[in-house]
């Protein structure tokens, strides 16, 4: 059977599997097929979630090569552990936990690199916008990513889940296995650090 990903059907993954919501019939079928070992179903899940998984990995690691490794690791974990997923829980939450754990595992392996030049190179090569304007914007974005990448892991993860994925405090708390109060406290602390280090953006 050929499965369609959320994006193929014109629905965004967030809308389809809204965090904490009960899975719709299509998603449930895809996940169940994946649990039975259906390769097409796995491909459909991959297509639906690849950007979210890769984005979290990239924003957390600050390095595209490391992000590829983390994303690969996450999907291989998904493939080998999909049998453990129970339909009554949130698939998004379950998958986010896999990504977070892969990020932490990678961090433990001690690989941390935050390249500065990639974004600037892209900006110079972009023809449409004024090179200077784009350079400045890219420089700002790069600076934000760099500062975020230098946050302590527990602060960095809440920032990434909050701003890359747009998750609410209680959703982040559920993924990280802590209280919403802890999330709020970490975010508050992270905001203060970011404000100080990015004050030149004002």
């Amino acid at each position, binding site marked *: 059977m050929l499965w369609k990903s959320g994006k193929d059907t014109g629905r965004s993954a967030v809308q389809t599997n809204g965090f904490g919501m009960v899975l719709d019939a299509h998603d449930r079928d895809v996940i169940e097929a994946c649990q039975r070992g259906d390769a097409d179903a796995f491909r459909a899940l991959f297509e639906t979630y690849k950007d979210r998984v*890769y984005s979290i990995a990239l924003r957390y690691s600050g390095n595209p090569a490391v992000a590829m490794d983390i994303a*690969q690791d996450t999907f291989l974990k998904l493939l*080998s552990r999909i*049998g453990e997923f129970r339909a009554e829980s949130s698939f998004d939450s379950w998958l986010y936990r896999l990504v977070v754990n892969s990020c932490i595992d990678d961090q433990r392996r001690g690989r941390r690199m935050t390249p500065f030049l990639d974004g600037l190179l892209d900006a110079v090569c972009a023809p449409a916008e004024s090179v200077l304007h784009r350079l400045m914007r890219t420089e700002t974005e790069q600076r934000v990513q760099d500062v975020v990448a230098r946050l302590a892991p527990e602060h960095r993860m809440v920032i990434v889940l909050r701003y890359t994925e747009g998750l609410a405090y209680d959703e982040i708390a559920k993924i990280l296995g802590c209280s919403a109060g802890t999330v709020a406290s970490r975010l508050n602390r992270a905001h203060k650090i970011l404000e100080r280090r990015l004050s030149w953006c004002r």
Partner: protein
Amino acid sequence: MNPWLEPELQRGLREVTAPAELWDRIRAARVPPSRGSHRGLIWALAVAVVLAAVALSLVRPPDERFALQALANGSQGIGFHCQNPAQLRAWVRANTGLDVPLRPVPPSSIQLIGARNVGARVEIAYQAGGRDAVLLVSKADAGRSNLPHSRVAGNVSSWVTDGQRYTLAASDPADLQLACKLCHLD
């Protein structure tokens, strides 16, 4: 939080498109999908361990079973016929490395028949009060402390002393005490 920070963070950390080669990398490294949970695997392993333990117990029966079997066989299969306790003790030591403290001069109620070694065990066949008895001796598990006599079945008793495991089987439960005189004083 300062109002300028949130849009900067949203812009700087926005979601991006995963590179196309991600799928190729996953496909190349892919393992067969899991069809069951790890719980199933744990149960399967537990069952395998139990089956292996059962199989092991069948392949290598405990000493008690060996002793009863030897008792049923009587003097059949005895490789070394000897009525002299000192000679028998020396034979056992030479063939198995076990030292069985047989009484140099047993009472008249104890009649030695002989011995045979089976793997790391030795079976000493004799008669106690005119009825068959078997003393089976093997090395106890490493570090095993002494264990007092325990009655495994009606006519079988076992114990551990000085790193050796003893299993005594007599034709009649009432003969067990008499059979002890192979090694012990009255």
